[in-house]
Structures are given as C-alpha cells and as structure tokens.
C-alpha cells in the first residue's frame, strides 16, 4: 500500500508538500477523485447569496413564536389564553391531529418517552414549548406569548444524572418505575483477562453538557400547495426524506402529501437529523390553515433548548502488564439523556455507541461495560458530530496516558504498543467491530514526528522563561463511518439505512444532472459528487450539476449523518454513471456506423475505429434527433437511478492520531495551544481540500468542547448560559494553525475505497488537549479529567493537589 502525504496550512492555503505515487484505481484527471477542486457552492456563499429558510418570504406568511416553560419540572395546572386570541394561540389540546413522537427500538429494556409537539400535562425541562403563538411578525408573536398565562405545580427537579440514576420517587416520566431510559451490559472476557494483571489504573472522568451551535438553528417554513395537493415544507434539515416520513406519520397524512425542501442549511452537526416539536407544530399549522407559517429558532432559544449533548460520566478500571499493555477494561458509563428521546434516532443511540466504541483503536480482549442512559430535567440528548466517540475517545485516551504514567513510559509508546497493528487488518475487536483497513501505528508515529516530540521534551526539561509549563499530548481514535443496515437494524430504530440511490441524467447538451437524497450543509457535496461523476463519465466538471435536499426531485435516502454521504450516495453516483456508459456506446456506434464491439467510451468521447464523437452528439440524438437512434437503443434512455451499498456494511473505519503542544499558565489557569497536528486516514480522498476543511471545522468544535463550551444548569434546572456572553465559543483567534497530514488506505468494501470523515475532527481534540495539559502538570501531580478545561477548574485542581505554581526558571 502506498501512502500520500499532503500538508495543509490551516487549510485555507493548503500546499501539497510531498506527493508520493498514488495507488488509485483510476488516474487523477485534475477534476476527478483525488483532485483539489474548488467548491462549486462557494461562489454563492462567498457573495452572500446562499438561500436559507430565514431568507424566504411567501405571500401571507405568518411568523410563529413559542411560549416556553420557565421551570424544569412541573405539572401544568392551567393555561389561560388572552381573550380574542382564537386561531393565534395554541396549546396541546388544539393540535389533536398531531401525534406525540415516540421512537421505539428493539434494544431490550428500553423505555419509551412520548414527546408531544407542545407540553402535555407536564413540563420536563426549561424551554419546553408550552404554547404556540402566531402573528404577522415575530415580534408580535413574541408579544402574544407574554399574554398567555400558565400555572404550574412545581415538582422536584432532577439535574444530576448520577443522582437521577438512583432516584425512584421523583420521576421524569411517571409511567416508568425509575429514571433509566436504558441500561446496557456487555461482558466479553473481562474476568479472565483482568485476572492477575500487575498494573491496575482507576479514573473517574466526565464531559459536561454543551450545545452544538450551528450558525443557523432550527428553521422551517410550511405551506399548503393547492396545485400539487401537498404540504410543502422548507426545512433546515440534514435528512429531508426522513423528516418527510416523520411529518406524514405524525400528522396522519399520506407520505405523498408532504414534500420537504431543504435549502441552504447553516450547519447541522446532528441537531437536524430529527423532527423537533416546533417543526411538527409549524407543519400542523400549515396543514390546518392552508397558508404559510414560519418559525426560526433564535440564538437564545438554541442555547437553552439546544443544550443537549456530550454529557457523559465514566468510571474506568484498566488492567495492564508491566509495560502498559492493556489486558482488560472495566467501564461504567452514565449518559445524561435529558427529558425526551427523539425520533427517529432515539436517545439509545448514544449509550449504544459509547458502549461499542469505548475500546477504540486498541487490541485487547477483556471488556466489561455497564452503561446507564438516565432521564433528567434537561433538553433531550441529541447525537452531535462524533456521536459518543468524542466522549469515549476522551475517556480511553486519558486512561492510556494514565497507564503510561503508572508504568513510567512515554504515552505515545504505550499507545503505540496497544494500537491494532496493520498486520492484523482486517481486525475484529473486543466489541466485534470490524476494522476494515489502515495502519494506526503509522499515523501515531507520523503525528509524533510531525509535532517534533524530541525537541519539545528538550524544551520542557529546560523550562520556559515566562514560567509556563509545556506539555505534549497525543490521542488516537478510529471511527466507524457509513455503517448501514446490519448495524442500525441491530438497534431496531424506526428508520434503518439501506441502499442509497442516485439519479444521473445526461442533458440534451451533454451535461449531467446528478440527484442524490443526502443533503450538503458544509460538506461540499455539490463539488465532491460532481468529481465522482466526472471521474466515471469524463463530462466536464463545470457541466455537472448536483441536486440535493428536495424529496420532490431526489431519490430516497436516509440522509446525511454518521459520516455516510460520500461513501453511500457517492457510491450510488458512481454506479449510476457506470450504468449509462454502455448506452452511450450503443448510440454512438450507430451514429458512427460502426459495430458496437469496435467502439468504446473514453472520458466524454465515443471512440470508434475511424472516428470519435462527443457525448453531446449522443445526447442530441436521444433528445432532439431521435430519427438517428438505433432501433435497439436502451429504453432507459440517458438517465438512470441506481443504488449502492458497500460490499460489507459494518462500516468503513477512518482513523487518526492528533498531537498537540500546550503552554499552561498555572497562575491564571490559561492554556495556550502552541502547535496542533492531525494525521488522518479516510481512505481514498475525493477532494483533499474538502477533507481538510471538514477536519479543521471538526477540530475547532473539539477545541470548543475541550476548553470553552459548556451549558451549566443550577440546582433548579435553570440554564446558566443562554447568550454568547456566557456560552463561550472558540473564534478564529482561539484556533491555532492546525497542520493536517493525510494517509490514504482504501477501504476494501466501498467504491474507490472511500471512507467517511465528516465527524472525525471533533473526536480527538478534548483528549489530546487534556493529555497535553496533564503532561504539562505532571510535575505538580495534577490531572484534569472534566471538560471544559476552564481556568477555574484548572486552578481548583492545582489547589486540590496541594501544589503551588513552580517558580519561574530560566532568566526571568
């Protein structure tokens, strides 16, 4: 296998440093698979001409605002609407036609929650929609919400998941006998492998709750189209076909009566893979009143209602040999699931992913895990970029470093010795995940060399003139991407991904239209799908148009999540393109009066023994001059819809090692990232520039999780960060110049060997930054184990350890 290394300087001006021999199925043409093609979509985005739901106005449109619960837990005694507000103010009982959202799974012991479009009987978190108000403008709709009176009987509030786990009297859902959505138990050879291990390391670690904070929050505009007899919904979603299924189901109308159009979407990250109650409410309004209604979530609503992810707690015990070789791992994971499960992915996704992915890229054979998913009076947990893996990577990678400290070795060495070696690929791990390909150790060693570990260790020994402490950290992970039917059907979710389809159509001028059912909201798929079509057909890249995000014009797909789109829909695009090639040859041969078996198709040209003609002439014959067609022309014409599924759908595993250097100021608790390196392998690269953009965005979000982002709640369940004054997001000045290096090990199971990579960047940063900080604080005997690493937490940890800041050394 050959490896390609690229070097990216912050990605904005990526420079190819070294290009080794490519080991690809096909040649890189300059615009096909592997090429650094500029993104088609950027022209409109850079000019401010994107088109989002917030940009849309339909004649007679009303705006919607929600009255939200001011308390975290209580029974609704009475709601009093302002006089004369009929048709403008709605409560749950007004929405009889809209069903509560319930998402079952087949996971044993999973308890169902009913998520009503508006609060029914009880409120279970601050911000839960209680009443819906409609007015010509949003401001007037908000005025209306102030006139609705709600009386509550307050109930005791469950804020802490560990406490709620044991609580049986106070219950988020009365019909349950406790507060556990789900408890998972897994034991695979734990006792046998742990027995007699000379090194035992125990840690308690946690990640706090945060929001996803896409630039655009929820946004929906729904109206009834009389001509098509359809509810047409402009919907900021990652999964247009899935939310169509959901809306039709919960509103009790035919699937064909709903068309979902997802226009430009300002970031999804997992927030937009479900049907939210507000969205069901607005769709109901349009169905009921047959005119346009719009709701756009504002930032404060997002930070309150969207404070819904990442909150995990770990108790881990690792058993290792004297060299730090991991023998067995015992885990107790508690996930703060919030108040409601979601449709269709359910809150069970997170504990399932946490349990299955905690062992990470490591080769060991004893694993026991008990995972609790607990209901609390907070917004219902949603899957955020990385889905559980940011948490498990944080927990596992801090454990690897703790083991290294226990056995007195360099963390990278212990990590290296435990990683699945390339010689073992493909490898079935202790949770029976099938790692398809890769060289995990090489990625780590490359990260070690690129960060320049030896030089930093030397500088560390000398000490800093300003007294700050230097630390170097590493983290490795592997990431299941594009996992399909066999994985999701095992969880028994309401919607299971299967084949993804693509439609490819030759236009009368020889251009291509490519239609896919996934959606692009930052992934650059208008570009990468076109690169794949260009790779197969040779049609000029700028003559290929990619259409996504509209159930009325694209084939069904479960949509964009789980780092699946380029593998699944990309594979379908390739399949559909290949299907058309013989049809081109058949018509082309007839036009050239040559025998079919003497004619071939080559990059946009039909090549015969005497002459060649461009695809355009074939297209003109089919559409404009059918008198020239052969009598046996394929009746499928010049378009086709075909599906794709990988040869094995247990997932194409991308992987990476990240390394970071930090300087810690122990007097004020400030952490500066001095260098950051990511060495990643997502199989065959379709567009390295897009991969780098995705990686950078993910790493920026991961740095947010590591250092800044937190949605704290007080003891009454009141959110304490509801504006950007209190909720810190990293900005351009907080993100260091990240250096990205690519390895390229194709997956044996996918088209071109592509692996998914949309989420990966967000997985490793908390682990790598904490490992670096803990490396810096090692002389003080201080270890940080809770995200985010605020100055307060850092200083408190130093104080707890009884350590004082070391005196400045050097010439200060």
């Amino acid at each position, binding site marked *: 296998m050959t490896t390609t290394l690229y070097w990216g300087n912050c990605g904005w001006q990526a420079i190819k440093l070294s290009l080794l021999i490519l080991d690809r199925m096909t040649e890189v043409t300059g615009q096909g698979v592997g090429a650094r093609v500029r993104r088609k979509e950027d022209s409109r985005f850079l000019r401010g001409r994107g088109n989002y739901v917030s940009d849309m106005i339909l004649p007679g449109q009303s705006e919607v605002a929600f009255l939200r619960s001011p308390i975290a837990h209580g029974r609704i005694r009475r709601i009093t609407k302002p006089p004369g507000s009929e048709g403008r103010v709605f409560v749950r009982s007004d929405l009889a036609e809209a069903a509560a959202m319930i998402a079952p799974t087949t996971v044993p012991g999973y308890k169902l929650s009913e998520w009503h479009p508006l609060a029914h009987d009880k409120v279970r978190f601050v911000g839960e929609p209680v009443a819906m108000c409609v007015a010509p403008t*949003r401001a007037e709709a908000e005025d209306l919400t*102030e006139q609705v009176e709600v009386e509550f009987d307050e109930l005791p509030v469950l804020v802490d998941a560990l406490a709620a786990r044991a609580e049986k009297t106070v219950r988020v859902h009365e019909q349950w006998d406790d507060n556990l959505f789900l408890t998972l138990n897994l034991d695979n050879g734990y006792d046998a492998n742990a027995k007699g291990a000379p090194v035992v390391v125990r840690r308690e670690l946690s990640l706090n709750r945060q929001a996803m904070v896409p630039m655009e929050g929820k946004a929906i505009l729904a109206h009834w189209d009389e001509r098509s007899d359809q509810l047409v919904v402009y919907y900021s979603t990652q999964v247009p076909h899935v939310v169509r299924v959901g809306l039709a189901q919960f509103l009790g109308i035919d699937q064909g009566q709903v068309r979902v159009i997802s226009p430009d979407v300002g970031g999804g990250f997992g927030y937009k893979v479900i049907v939210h109650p507000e969205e069901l409410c607005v769709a109901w309004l349009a169905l009921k009143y047959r005119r346009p209604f719009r709701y756009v979530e504002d930032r404060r*609503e997002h930070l309150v209602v969207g404070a819904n992810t990442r909150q995990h707690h770990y108790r881990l015990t690792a058993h290792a040999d004297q060299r730090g070789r991991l023998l067995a791992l015992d885990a107790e994971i508690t996930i703060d699931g919030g108040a409601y499960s979601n449709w269709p992915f359910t809150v069970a996704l997170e504990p399932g992913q946490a349990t299955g992915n905690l062992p990470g890229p490591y080769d060991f054979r004893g694993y026991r895990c008990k995972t609790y998913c607990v209901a609390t009076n907070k917004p219902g947990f949603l899957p955020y970029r990385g889905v559980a893996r940011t948490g498990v990577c944080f927990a596992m990678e801090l454990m690897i470093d703790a083991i290294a400290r226990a056995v007195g070795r360099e963390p990278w060495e212990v990590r290296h010795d435990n990683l699945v070696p390339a010689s073992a690929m493909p490898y079935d791990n202790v949770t029976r995940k099938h790692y398809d390909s890769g060289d995990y150790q090489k990625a780590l060693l490359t990260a070690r060399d690129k960060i320049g570990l030896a030089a930093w260790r030397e500088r560390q020994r000398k000490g800093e003139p300003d007294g700050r402490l230097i630390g170097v950290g590493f983290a490795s992970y592997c990431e299941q991407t594009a996992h399909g039917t066999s994985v999701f059907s095992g969880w028994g979710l309401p919607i299971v991904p299967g084949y993804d389809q693509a439609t490819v159509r030759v236009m009368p001028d020889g251009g291509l239209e490519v239609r896919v059912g996934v959606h692009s909201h930052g992934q650059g798929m208008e570009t990468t799908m076109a690169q794949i079509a260009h790779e197969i057909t040779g049609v000029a890249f700028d003559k290929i148009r990619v259409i996504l995000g509209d159930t009325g014009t694209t084939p069904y797909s479960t949509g964009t999540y789980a780092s699946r789109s380029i593998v699944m829909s990309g594979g379908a695009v390739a399949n559909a393109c290949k299907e058309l090639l013989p049809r081109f040859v058949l018509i082309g041969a007839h036009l050239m009066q040559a025998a079919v078996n003497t004619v071939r198709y080559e990059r946009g040209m039909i090549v015969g023994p005497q002459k060649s003609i461009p695809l355009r002439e074939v297209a003109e014959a089919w559409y404009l001059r059918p008198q020239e067609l052969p009598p046996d022309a394929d009746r499928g014409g010049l378009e086709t819809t075909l599906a794709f599924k990988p040869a094995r759908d247990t997932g194409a595993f991308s992987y990476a090692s990240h390394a970071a250097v930090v300087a810690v100021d122990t007097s004020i608790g*400030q952490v500066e990232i001095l260098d950051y390196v990511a060495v990643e392998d997502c199989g065959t690269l379709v567009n390295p520039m897009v991969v780098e953009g995705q990686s950078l965005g993910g790493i920026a979000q991961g740095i947010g999780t590591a250092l*800044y982002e937190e949605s704290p709640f007080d003891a009454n369940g009141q959110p304490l960060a509801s504006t950007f004054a209190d909720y810190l997001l990293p*900005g351009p*000045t907080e993100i260091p110049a990240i250096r990205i290096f690519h390895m390229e090990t194709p997956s044996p199971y996918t088209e071109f060997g592509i692996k998914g990579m949309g989420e990966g960047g967000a997985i490793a940063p908390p682990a790598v930054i904490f490992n670096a900080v803990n490396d810096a604080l090692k002389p003080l005997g201080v270890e940080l184990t809770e995200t985010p690493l*605020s100055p307060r937490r850092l200083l408190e940890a130093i104080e707890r350890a009884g350590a004082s800041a070391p005196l400045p050394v050097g010439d200060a």
Partner: protein
Amino acid sequence: MKAARFDYVRPDDLHQAVAALGRAGGGAKLLAGGQSLGPMLNLRLARPSLLVDVSRLDSLARVEDIGRAWRIGACVTHSRIEDMREQLAGGEMLCEVAAGIAYRAIRNRGTIGGSIAHADPSSDWPLALAALGATVNIRNAGGARAMPLEKFLLGAFTTALREDEILESVEVPKLSRAGRYGYYKFCRKTGEYAEASAAAVFAPGTPFARI
C-alpha cells in the same frame, strides 16, 4: 428574541433630545451605537417606551483639543478613537484601549459615551477613563454640569445620570511625554468581556498615580 414595542425619535439637536427625554417622563432610553442596548432590547431586558436616537448628532461626534485635555463627544465610536493613533498626542492610551474593545464590527458602532453611561464594570472605558482622571460633561434642561468620572460611576450599571439628562462628552487629561500607563484585561477569548482588568497611570507633575 425581538424587541417589544417602542416609539422612536431622532432629534435634530441636543436641545430637542433633552426635551424628548423630559416629555417621556422616565420611559425613554438614549440610543447611540446600540451595541449594549440592542441586545437588551431584543432580550426584552430593556423595555423603554421611547428610543431617542442621538447617534447622528454632530455635536456629540467631535474630538476636540482643549489644551490640557482631549474632549471627546459621547457618540464618538471606539474605532474612530482606535484610528486616531497619530493624532491624539497625550491620549495614546485611549487608542490602545479602544483597539482592544470586543471586535472591530462592534467598535465601528459602539460609542465611548454609550459605554460610560451603560457602566458595565467588565467593559473597558469606565476603568480606563477613571484611571486617566476623566471628567464627564452632562446636559440637561436646566443647562449643563460636569463631574469626575469616578463620582459619575455609582456602581455596576448605575451612574449619576438622571433620566432627563444626556452625557455630552468626556474630557480626558493629556499625559505628558514622561507619563506612563499600563492596561491589561484577562479574557478567555478575543472579544469577550473582561473576567478581570487593571489599569495604571502615572502622570509626573501631578499629585496622583492611579492604579
């Protein structure tokens, strides 16, 4: 997150502005750059019945050299002060402080007078100007009054400005060439309100050094 209903006037001069405040009987708010008031309106934390927009009054947008001090109009923006590095002899500290306020987009709209009148203890001007020994000029229906900034600031978000008064300008004594100053704020990220901040000014020939 849209503002509740309010009325709006844009007076032609300071006299009309003071009169508008008087007529509103305490329900009015002055709008200058709107960088603090805007979010407070949208969050409905501020619910004035009337906004009196003084942002386009030329008389509040002057920077004048009055010899021993610079007189800066209340509606002079942070970015304008930031950009006066070569023109504000003895007032260099002002340029430096201005350049560190939030982001340029905010500095383009936010005003020095608005910041002082808002009196957020984690913002820059109240601290920096107090350290520099600045004086504020206040206009009201009866005429005008002046007071040291330190007396004007009564506490967090509280000033000596009455509801019918307008902060007209701030006078900042010039530092001599021998003068020294330092200004530092601790923020976890660029543009954030300070978690802690400190200013020190040493003006030789005066009886005070301020920290």
